[in-house]
C-alpha cells in the first residue's frame, strides 16, 4: 500500500486512546482525539478513512460528534464503540449518525481489526468510484408531484389496520404492498421493484428484526426500516451490525417522520444502485465471500443467517 489508511479514535479516556493507537499503529496511521471538538478539528485537516468514537463523553456525545463528522467527511465509515449506551443513543446512532457498526467495550481485538480492515477497503473503493464518476452521490431529485414513483414500498406488520393506514398514506405516489406475514412478504419482493421494506418488530411467529436482517442478506440493495414499540437496545444493536438497517423507528411516530424516512430511504436506494461501494452489506458479502443464499423459505434463510453470524469474523 502506497499510503496507509488513516484512522481516528475519539475517546475521553486517554488510556483507551493509547491502548488503541498501539494496537493499530503498525498497520495504520492513527489519530486520536480526547473530545468530539478535537475530533472534528482533525477531520477538517486530514482525510480519515474510519472514525471510531466513544458515546459517553462530556460536552459532545459520540452520536452528536458522528453526525457532524458525517457532514465534514461523508465518505468516512463511522463506528460507535462504547462501554454503555442507552436505547436512545443506539437509535440515534442509526438514524442520525448512520453508523456502520456498534461495538461494545471491552472489544474483541480480532473482530475489531477485521471490521476496520473491511471498512478501510470500502472507503478505498468509494474514493476510486468517486474519481471515476465525478458525482459519487446521485442528484437527489424527487419524482415530480403528479408522477407515480417507479419505486415500490413493502410494509409488513401483524396489524392489518396499521397496514391499511400506511397504504392510504403512501399511495398513489408509491405503489405500496402490504403483508401481515413474513413469508408472504418474502414472496412479494422478487415480483416487484421494491426499494424499501418497512417491518414491525413483532410479526407473530418471526421476529421482524430477523426478517429484515434476512431481507438485507438476500437483497442487499433493498433499504430496510424497522418499526418497533418495544424498547430493546440489544435488538437495535443487532439491526445495525447484522442488518445494516437504514432507520429504526420507535412507534408511535409522527406521520411526517415516516414520510421523511421513506423519502430519504428512496434516495439511499438510488445511491446503493448507482454506487455499489455505498452498499456496505453487498461489499461485506463479496469481501468475505459469503455464499449466495439458496434458501427458499424465510425459515431456511434465518437458519443460514444464524450459522453465518456465528462464524463471522467481523462485528
Amino acid at each position: 500500500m502506497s499510503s496507509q489508511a488513516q484512522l481516528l479514535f475519539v475517546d475521553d479516556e486517554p488510556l483507551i486512546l493509547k491502548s488503541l493507537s498501539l494496537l493499530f499503529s503498525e498497520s495504520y496511521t492513527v489519530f486520536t482525539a480526547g473530545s468530539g471538538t478535537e475530533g472534528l478539528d482533525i477531520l477538517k485537516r486530514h482525510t480519515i478513512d474510519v472514525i471510531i468514537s466513544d458515546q459517553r463523553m462530556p460536552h459532545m456525545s459520540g452520536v452528536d460528534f458522528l453526525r457532524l463528522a458525517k457532514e465534514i467527511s461523508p465518505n468516512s465509515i463511522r463506528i460507535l464503540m462504547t462501554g454503555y449506551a442507552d436505547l436512545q443513543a443506539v437509535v440515534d446512532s442509526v438514524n442520525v449518525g448512520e453508523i456502520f457498526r456498534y461495538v461494545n467495550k471491552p472489544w474483541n481485538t480480532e473482530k475489531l481489526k477485521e471490521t476496520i480492515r473491511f471498512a478501510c477497503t470500502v472507503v478505498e473503493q468509494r474514493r476510486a468510484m468517486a474519481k471515476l464518476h465525478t458525482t459519487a452521490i446521485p442528484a437527489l431529485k424527487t419524482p415530480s408531484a403528479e408522477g407515480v414513483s417507479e419505486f415500490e414500498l413493502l410494509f409488513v406488520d401483524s396489524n392489518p389496520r396499521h397496514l391499511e393506514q400506511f397504504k392510504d398514506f403512501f399511495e398513489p405516489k408509491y405503489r405500496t404492498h402490504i403483508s401481515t406475514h413474513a413469508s408472504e412478504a418474502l414472496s412479494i419482493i422478487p415480483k416487484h421493484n421494491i426499494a424499501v421494506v418497512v417491518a414491525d418488530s413483532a410479526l407473530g411467529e418471526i421476529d421482524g428484526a430477523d426478517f429484515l436482517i434476512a431481507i438485507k442478506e438476500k437483497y442487499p440493495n433493498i433499504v430496510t426500516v424497522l418499526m418497533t414499540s418495544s424498547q430493546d437496545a440489544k435488538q437495535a444493536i443487532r439491526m445495525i451490525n447484522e442488518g445494516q438497517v437504514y432507520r429504526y423507528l420507535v412507534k408511535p411516530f409522527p406521520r411526517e417522520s415516516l414520510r421523511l424516512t421513506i423519502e430519504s430511504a428512496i434516495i439511499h436506494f438510488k445511491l446503493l444502485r448507482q454506487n455499489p461501494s455505498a452498499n456496505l452489506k453487498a461489499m461485506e458479502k463479496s469481501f468475505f465471500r459469503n455464499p449466495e443464499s439458496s434458501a427458499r423459505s424465510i425459515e431456511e434463510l434465518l437458519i443460514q443467517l444464524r450459522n453465518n453470524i456465528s462464524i463471522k469474523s467481523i462485528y
Partner: protein
Amino acid sequence: MIDYKKIKKSLKRALKSIEQMELLEELMKAQQTGQLPPHLSPRMLASEFSIATQQFIQQLQLPVSSEPSPPASAPSNGEPPPMGYEEWLKKLQMRQGGQPIAPAPSAPSALSSGAGVDEAIRQSEARLRTIIDATPLGICITNADYIFEYVNKAYADIYGYHPSEMLGKPFTMIVEQDKVDFWRDLHDKYLAGYKEIRGEWNTVHKSGKKLTILADAARIVGADGKPKKVTFVMDVTELSKLREESRLNEMQMMQTEKMSSLGQMVAGLAHEMNTPLGFVKNNIEMLEAKNKETKELIALYEKLRSQIMYGSPNDVALLLSQIDTVSQKVKNRVWQESDSLFRSSVEGINRIQDLILNLKNFSRLDEADFKPTDINENIESTLKIAGHLFKGGIQVIKEFSPLPPVQAFPAQMNQVFLNLITNAVHAVDERTGRITIKTMHQGNSVVIKVIDNGKGIPPENLKKIFDPFFTTKPVGQGTGLGLSIAYKIIEKHGGKIEVQSQVGRGTEFTITLPVSGSAQLSTTKQGVSSPFADSPFAE
C-alpha cells in the same frame, strides 16, 4: 340544640383525614420493614372519628358511664394525642358557657319520681328518637347478651337490613361468622370496661359483601339498670378501597423512580467499568503477543549458545540474523511502551476494584440496619458512585468537618445524597459548574449542605419541589419522586431538609440530622403493630 353543622364538620374532618393519610410515609416504613401496613394509620382516623361521636353523645346528653375512654395511643407522627373524653367534654361545656356537668346519674334512680318527670322523660325520649333516626351516623345499642336493643335507620342501611330485621337479634349477624367468638369476647370486655372499640373493623353486609367500618362506642346504663353498649358506625369501605388503590399507585411510582435511578446508575457504572476493561484487556493481549516474541527470542538465544560451542560459524551467523529479525520485531512501540502498558493496566484494574468497593459501600446491602453512621464517609462513597456525572468541567468542593456518628440507615442516607448531588449536577453548567458539599457538627445536630451555582429554582417551584411527582424535567426523564423520597427519608431520621434558591445564582439544600437519632426510627420496627385490620389496638 343539636349542632348538625358541628357533627357534619367532624365527619368531614374524619373524611379529610383519611384522604390526607400520608401514603408515602407508610410506604417508606413498609420498605424498611418489608411489611405492608394493612391500613394506613387507622389510629389517626379513629381519633378524629371518636371526637365526632363523643360530640354526638354529648349533644344527645345520653347518660354515659363516667369512665373515660382511654385515649388512643399517641400517633407516631408527633401530633398531639386525641383528647380524653372527659377533658373534651369539659372543654365543650366551657365553650358553650355552661358549667361542667357531672355525668348524668344512672337512669333508674333519677327517673323514678313524679309525673312531671315522666312527662319530661317522654318528651326527651321522643326528641332523642327523632334525632337518632335522622342522623347519618349509624347508631345501635346492644346489651350484655349481644342483642340489638336499638338500631337507627342509618345503621340498618349500612348493613342492608330494615331495622326490624335487626332488632332483638344478636349483633354477631353483621360480623364474619368464624369470628363470632372474638366479637362476643370483645363485647364482654368492652362492657366490663377494659377494651376499646375505636377504629376500623371488618364487618359483613346482608349480601355477604365485606364492609370496612369506622366505629366508636360508649357505655351507658339502660333503663333496666344494666350496662349497654352504644356503637357509632360509619361505612368507609369505598374510602379504604380508594386508599388501597392510591397506595398501589404510589408503590408503582416509587418502583419506577427506583428503577429509573437504578437504570441511570447502571448505565453510568457499566460505562465506567467497561472503559478500563477495554484498555486493560487490549493491553494484556498486546503484551501477551510481545511475551510470545520474547520467548521466541530466548529460545533462539539458547540455540545460539549451543551453536557457539558446537556449531559451525555459518549456523551461528544464521541464528544471529534470526535473532536480529525477531528482536527488531519485538522492539516495536508496544515493547517500548510496555512499562506504561503494565502500569496503566494495573491502574485500570484498581479503578474497577474501586468502583466495585464503592458500589458495595453505596448500597450497604450488608448493613441494612439502623446504626451509627459516618456521614462524611457516606458522602465520599456516594460521590465516587456519582463520579461519572462530573466528567465535564464540574468542580466538586468538599468541606467536611469531623462528625460524630449519626444513627441512620446508611443506604437511605446515600440515596438522599445521590439525589441531591444528581440534582446539583443537572442544575449547573457543564463547564463552570461548582458543587460544594459541607458537613458541620452543630450542637446535637449534624448539618449537611449541598450548594450549587446552577440555574436556581424559581420561587413558584420552590415550594413544590418536595411534592411527590413534581418535576420540571421532560416526560420520561424524571419521576418527580426523588426529592419527596429524600424528604421522607430525612423526616424518618428525625431530621429536616430545607432549601434556599435564587434564580441564576444557585441552590442550597440543608439537611439537619439529630446525632442521637430519633425516637421515631427506633420504634419503626414495632410501628406496624398488627397485620390484622380488626385489631387496631393490639400492640
